[in-house]
């Protein structure tokens, strides 16, 4: 008796590009090599490649990296004095970070939203009372670190966060400080 084994055909992703990858551009090749070595040393999966035509700044090489971890990677590069000229998503290098904010006034409290992240403070004490929204794992971490802190003394989210959600919270933090004239 013959048994026929049916094996499901392996599916391929319908979007064949690199939706979760970003590109870092630098002044010169020397910076690219230094940055690549540093990022590899810290365990990131990165690769050096030629820049897409839309990217008009930098040298003839760029580094591809996991886009969601942008905040963490930028911090490391800045600490090592090799900040990139530009950071863009691979699939659409013309995309820019959100620039729109939504503010909700609850009387005693003020909430600012940037993209998917919301930061709420007590207007009188300037205490951070809540952080909501977001989806990356540093959001609950940022909540644990920042809720209850005075906005004037709290570490900026860019120093504590690691992902694009952390970056969005940084934008909300800067906007709420601007609105409070801090």
């Amino acid at each position, binding site marked *: 008796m013959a048994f026929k084994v049916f094996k*499901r055909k*392996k*599916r391929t*992703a*319908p*979007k064949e590009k690199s*939706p*979760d990858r*970003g590109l870092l551009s630098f002044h010169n090749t020397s910076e690219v090599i230094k940055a690549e070595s540093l990022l590899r040393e810290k365990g990131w999966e990165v690769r050096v490649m030629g820049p897409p035509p839309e990217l008009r700044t930098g040298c003839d090489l760029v580094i591809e990296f*996991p*886009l*969601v*971890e942008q905040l*963490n990677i930028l911090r490391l590069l800045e600490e090592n004095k090799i900040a990139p000229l530009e950071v863009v*998503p691979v*699939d*659409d290098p013309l*995309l*820019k*970070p*959100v*620039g*729109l904010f*939504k503010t*909700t006034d*609850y009387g*005693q*409290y003020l*909430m600012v*939203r940037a*993209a*998917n*992240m*919301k930061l*709420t403070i*007590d207007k009188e004490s300037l205490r951070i*009372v*809540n*952080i*909501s*929204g*977001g*989806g*990356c*794992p*540093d*959001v*609950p*971490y940022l*909540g*644990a670190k920042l*809720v209850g802190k005075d906005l004037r003394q709290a570490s900026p989210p860019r120093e504590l*966060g*690691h*992902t*694009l*959600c*952390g*970056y*969005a919270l940084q934008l909300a933090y800067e906007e709420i400080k601007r609105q409070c004239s801090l």
Partner: protein
Amino acid sequence: MLALIGTVPKEDFPLVSGTAVLKGGSLSLNGYQISVNRGTPALIAATSMVCETLGLPRPFSFLVGDIGLGDGSRKLYRHLKSHLPSLGARIIAFHYLQPDVDWHNRILWALEEQGNLPVLIADAGYMYAAKMSGFAASYDLFTPDIGELAFLADEVAPHPFYTRGFILHEEDNVPGLIKRAFEGGNAAKTLLIKGSKDYICTKERVLATVDTPRVETLEPIGGTGDTLTGMVAALTYGGYPVAEAAILAARANRLAGALANPTPATQVVDIVERIPKALEAVLDEAGKVREQIFPTTCCRELPYKRALIDTYAKGSC
């Protein structure tokens, strides 16, 4: 089995799995205590509350520590690829994980290899990965807020952080964003959009909106979206069709919020405590509506005791 998957915001928290027990505002899992604040612990707490109220077995959870570095998430992804398909979960809710399209695809394909996919729910970072992968339609439910809906509607955005301005400007036009998300193939079969008015919709139409009780102060409270996703997962586990579970959960989440009489400074654990009372009230009301439509004993029974799904679909007992 109902499986819940996510992270806790602690660097040194190991990968653990099992049935968490909720007690006094914290979860206990394999000897580890996890405070219920925002994120996946809030999801697990809300799910557990609903399961207990409905008399269902408690959910099975997979948790790992990750503060946004992605290391814990990748460890969990690897574990899930090997262990999740054989677990036999009927419903799986994926939550706060570092979005990673490659790992997302490996897990989805591993589940597909088993034959019929379980009911798949994605929220938070896993929803971002599911959208980016191009396999959004493999999911039964996404639970975005308004900012995340704009991201789903933007076919090129790799993360809500990069949603294009002209789409963000459309945030008051929720039906337009819903249409765009479905047309771009970036929505699950059902969407529950969390906002001042909650929308429950499929590709074909908006099935329902829920805006009462109106509690404006819920939006700033971290974790209220997580409790809502957890409640839908539990109600689906209890036998409700996904869309109906979403409608009931949206009502119950709002009512639990209202019972806590919250301010923007309220923490979600105060709302979690009110879930059983809120859910009972919402189910009681839903039961009365059913009585009016189907005045027979079997139809009055709720789906978690008896499959009313077919009854509704066929319009008879």
